[in-house]
């Protein structure tokens, strides 16, 4: 859905984005992580058709952002990291304005405005002045505006920044909801844990360079070399360990009470073979969990070299 090929963006002598490659599939929730000044906003602005790359190509939904900006704009919803709202309008007027700009039929506007207000929990603010909204509400209003034309792709640049904890949780819930609706989402943050629990893939950027990108479990596997499987057994853990060690792709198995930790060197997708094997060998188990390494561990591992 989103494709970035060899993209570089320079401001004078300064390279803000340096030969970045990235591909995000349909329906994925991609977490774009990096410290402040890493080049996240610069990248997202190019995807949002607001600035042009110095080199390379970007496309959204198969449309080139340089040659087909209108087609791209039709399918993206963009929420900037810092933005303003028209303070002197009413909430419904604000949404009506953007619905009209997005060429939503006048007859459908009211219904759609009600829908996005409900989704963002702002229904009671329908007739309120935008000026009177709290920071978190303005953030949700902007998100509501982003959804008016039912875009397939959402580009959310630090949607939770500057919010109090409560408002942060609300925004996160909303993104989760949008994810359930099947949207392709690119969401950036400089705080890793904020994205950890709902992203299907992540990219880590620092000083304009993409240090790692891909599915979370793939990155984990690539970094740690193997997957740790947690198996809760019903019978004797030692017997289970014996059975497990007969396999060549299990390098180590230890037990911790009834829980067995097994290090698996095969591909992440093949852990089901281990499960099938255990059942066939008559090992009775109540839980079988391939544990992905903590996102934070990954982040530290990846950025350690670059920061030092």
């Amino acid at each position, binding site marked *: 859905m989103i494709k970035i090929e060899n993209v570089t963006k320079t401001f004078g002598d300064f390279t803000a984005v340096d030969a970045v490659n990235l591909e995000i599939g349909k329906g994925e929730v991609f977490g774009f992580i990096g410290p402040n000044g890493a080049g996240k906003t610069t990248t997202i*602005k190019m995807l*949002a*058709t*607001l*600035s*042009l790359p110095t080199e390379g190509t970007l496309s959204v939904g198969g449309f080139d952002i340089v040659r087909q*900006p*209108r087609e791209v*704009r*039709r399918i*993206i919803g*963009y929420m*900037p990291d*810092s*933005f*303003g*709202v*028209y303070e*002197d*309008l009413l909430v419904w*007027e604000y949404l009506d*304005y*953007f619905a*009209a*700009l*997005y*060429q939503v039929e006048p007859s459908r506007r009211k219904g759609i405005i009600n829908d996005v207000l409900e989704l963002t929990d702002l229904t009671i603010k329908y007739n309120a002045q935008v000026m009177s909204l709290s920071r978190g509400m303005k953030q949700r209003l*902007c998100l509501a*505006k982003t959804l008016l*034309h039912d875009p397939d792709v959402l580009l959310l640049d630090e949607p939770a920044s500057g919010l109090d904890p409560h408002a942060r949780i609300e925004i996160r819930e909303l993104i989760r909801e949008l994810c359930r609706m099947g949207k392709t989402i690119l969401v950036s943050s400089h705080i890793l844990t904020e994205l950890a629990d709902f992203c299907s893939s992540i990219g880590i950027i620092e000083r304009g360079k993409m240090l790692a990108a891909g599915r979370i479990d793939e990155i984990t596997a690539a970094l740690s070399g193997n997957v740790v499987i947690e198996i809760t057994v019903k019978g004797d853990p030692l017997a289970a360990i014996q059975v497990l060690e007969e396999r060549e792709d299990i390098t180590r198995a230890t037990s911790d009470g009834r829980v067995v930790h097994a290090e698996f060197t095969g591909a992440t997708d093949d852990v089901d073979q281990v499960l099938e094997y255990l059942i066939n060998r008559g090992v009775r188990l109540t839980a079988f969990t391939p544990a992905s390494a903590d996102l934070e561990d990954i982040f530290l591992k990846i950025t350690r070299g670059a920061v030092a």
Partner: protein
Amino acid sequence: MRFSNPILIKEMRSRMRGMRAFLVLTGYVTLLSIIVGLIYLVLSKNAPATLVNQAGIVLTPVLIYVQMGLICLIAPTFSASAVSFEREQQTFDLLIVSLAKPTTILFGKVGAALSYLLLTLFGSVPLISLTYSMGGVSMGDIAIAYLIMIVQGVTYCSFSFLWSTLIKRSVVSQLVSILTVIVLVAAMPALALFFTALSASFTGGPSSTFINVTFLLLRTNPFAAVASLIPGFPMPNNVWLRSVPIWLSQVVFYLLLMISSLYLSLRRLRNARNWV
């Protein structure tokens, strides 16, 4: 294409909200009335009766001139921060990523400024009918004067809009727009005077070339255009373009200025992705 411009609607909603628009209009008409009233008082005390009976011949041009002065001051402010303010408030990016075409932005913003301007201009119509009823001026001349004022306002709105797309800070774009108006209406007569004086000092009397240049410069000035409508306006016999009325060439000059401003603004808006 349907005739409904979301930007125009939004601008009207926020401009007309509350008392502001109403107060501006009331203030404008009150100011005009006070000025005309004062002049009438002075006139009726000091002038000979024949003139007082034809007070319109003085009051109508005065009213037009005061209005033109106000247009110079307020027309630029209506659109001089149209884009720069959106950039300052960080609302412009959202406008650009929407499906709003550059023409929609241009006509929405300039259109809103114009409707505001026309509203103020037409606020003065009752006053003009009053001075007209005092006699001395023709309906045709008043119509031409209004045409000059409308074109003047549209032109100022247009190049102020251009400035608002070129300059990032709204205070600066406002200032530059007002300065442009001052240069346009004050610098031309000043230049004309300078030329006349210069030629006079060389030859003991202005040469015909200098007179020609002076009159060409006058043709860019809306105040001169209105003055040329007043009977007795001096026009040398063999000056260039003598058969073309001054007001007509002035209006054409302003229209050209307006069209080029709008064209340049449109090009600038089309290129918004390269702005820094």
